[in-house]
């Protein structure tokens, strides 16, 4: 068992570009769920719309990638409006049903064979990354020798990704300390009370849905840039649930909760992956093949993550950085 490899490999993932992607998605969900109490189970849909908008802008119309970014943001706003108009006047569960369905519909439509000429079907689209890599200021691998090392391209995505995370956290902090954020938190606690005080609850929920969705869109853009390709498999339903896991680990309604959550989530999931991978490989594995072979081992991380999430919800439902005091109130 190579413990050093285990730790460095996990650190690489915990700070890597993918963690930044999930962090951005979770920041969006934090606005929705943590602050406003909206159950959005379709964050992957917001990500997908933005990712595909950016890519198709350059692959189909041959226009600038940056124009695609703009289109992606605009389309996610439209998507949020489409989801919100019929459901935000209803009980919270209706939004949950509609978002999860809408995200799946979009994924199925985009991957349909009928559109494969333009949208690439199941294989997705490539060949758009040039302009992004051209402006990469890094030409050598970056990192700390012997500990972590990222390729120049990965590091460039990391800079963009974590930079966006920082900006998103700043915006979240600015918004949530303001009277606007106070109205959102009040809506989470009791909509009718807020309505009785003269606030247009519907409009606030819509704004929350749009802003959280836009953070989701940023996540979609970053994951597309990181992979230099975009495909339907990047935006399956489990992406949304991983983002929720990230949010719940860090603690909902905390500005930095998603950041801590993303780092911890990716560290743990990689440690588990590498551990079971090493334990079942080689000529004389620690865990004999009669108990577990290496194909089975690759699923162990998800089993442990699920178990961990359950334990977290039972023993520390406010997440690692949540406020115990707030939680005591729920008992009433």
């Amino acid at each position, binding site marked *: 068992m190579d413990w050093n490899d285990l730790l460095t490999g996990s650190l690489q993932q915990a700070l890597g570009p993918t963690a930044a992607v999930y962090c951005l998605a979770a920041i969006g969900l934090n606005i929705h769920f943590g602050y406003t109490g909206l159950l959005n189970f379709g964050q992957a849909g917001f990500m997908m719309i933005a990712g595909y908008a950016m890519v198709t802008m350059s692959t189909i119309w041959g226009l600038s990638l940056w124009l695609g970014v703009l289109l992606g943001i605009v389309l996610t706003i439209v998507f949020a409006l489409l989801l919100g108009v019929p459901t935000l006047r209803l009980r919270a569960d209706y939004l949950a049903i509609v978002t999860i369905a809408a995200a799946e519909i979009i994924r199925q439509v985009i991957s349909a064979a009928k559109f494969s000429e333009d949208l690439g079907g199941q294989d997705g689209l490539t060949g758009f990354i040039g302009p992004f890599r051209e402006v990469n200021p890094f030409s050598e691998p970056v990192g700390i020798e012997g500990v972590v090392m990222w390729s120049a391209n990965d590091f460039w995505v990391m800079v963009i990704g974590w930079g966006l995370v920082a900006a998103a956290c700043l*915006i979240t902090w*600015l918004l949530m300390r*303001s009277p606007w*954020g*106070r109205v959102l938190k009040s809506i989470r*606690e009791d909509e009718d*009370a807020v*309505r009785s*005080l*003269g606030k247009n609850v519907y409009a606030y929920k819509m704004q929350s849905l749009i802003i959280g969705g836009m953070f989701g869109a940023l996540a979609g853009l970053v994951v597309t840039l990181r992979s230099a390709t975009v495909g339907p498999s990047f935006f399956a339903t489990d992406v949304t649930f991983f983002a929720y896991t990230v949010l719940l680990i860090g603690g909902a309604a905390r500005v930095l909760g998603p950041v801590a959550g993303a780092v911890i989530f990716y560290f743990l999931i990689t440690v588990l992956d590498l551990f079971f991978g090493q334990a079942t490989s080689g000529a004389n594995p620690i865990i004999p093949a009669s108990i577990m072979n290496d194909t089975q081992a690759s699923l162990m991380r998800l089993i442990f993550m699920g178990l961990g999430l359950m334990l977290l919800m039972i023993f520390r439902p406010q997440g690692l950085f949540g406020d115990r005091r707030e939680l005591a109130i729920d008992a009433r």
Partner: protein
Amino acid sequence: MPDEQQERPDSSDEWAVAQPVSTTTAGPAGPAGPAFSVDVAASKRALADVDHTPGVAKPDPILKADNVVRTFGGLTAVDVDHLEVQRGVITALIGPNGAGKTTLFNLLTGFDRPDSGDWSFNGRSLNRAPAYKVARMGMVRTFQLTKVLSKLTVIENMRVGATGQRGESLLAALFAPLWRSQETDNTERADGLLARFLLDKKREDFAGSLSGGQRKLLEMARSLMTEPELVMLDEPMAGVNPALKQSLLGHVKSLREEGRTVLFVEHDMDMVRDISDWVVVMAQGRIVAEGPPDAVMADPAVIDAYLGAHHDTELTFEAEEQILAEAEAEIEQEAHSNE
């Protein structure tokens, strides 16, 4: 109904933006309260000449409702032909359980939509106005089951109540200097109200940690942050201990002294008798009686509505025998007619 009273000189928009509170326009002359220029004594005197009939017109109504009907399936929960609420006084809305009092509250404040009906506040129609607009017009309500914002502190609960906050728009929210001074003013006003409602020691506690009675106080204080002209309290005394009840009574009376109009639903008859200037009685969705508390509570229609028609006839042995004999005779007769 006296139409000339409908248009008051200080109606509509003025009070909604009136801050600080003392700068309202001139109403009828007299010892005006700090919030609204309403001559409370004159309003009360005016009620003395009003008939004690259901749906009677008031000399200076702040709220008027006509033909408000709400049905739930086959059940008609509310069917109010006409209702006026006099400005500047405390009006109680009483009635047995299921009479439709809370449903009427919900309809008037935009929390529910009626099947038909018209109603207006200060002469402005409220038909189909959403709840938040009703509140902004100066008609604020509390709830039967208290709605505090549990995971916000008491002072934050209060701050939410302030209307017209610049920092509540998305763009301005990002830039604190745009709203900070207003926030300070609101906080000052909130602290004043917390002191008045004896909640200042709880300022930094989560609202969810308050007792039932304190929640009632907080809800009432928070509703005052909107500078309402009409305060609608849905069972303010429910679940409040007797000691706190007295102080709550005082608070409700103080609303009237400020020139606010109060309409409240209550089951506690002592409270109704003690503080209300006018009582409206509902039963089975309809208004069955109106009048000053003493007159209403002696009204046979009200007693019937609450207790059934025979509640006060004590049955003697003879009377019981007689009823029994009558019943038997009736059965006999029916048996005969069937033969």
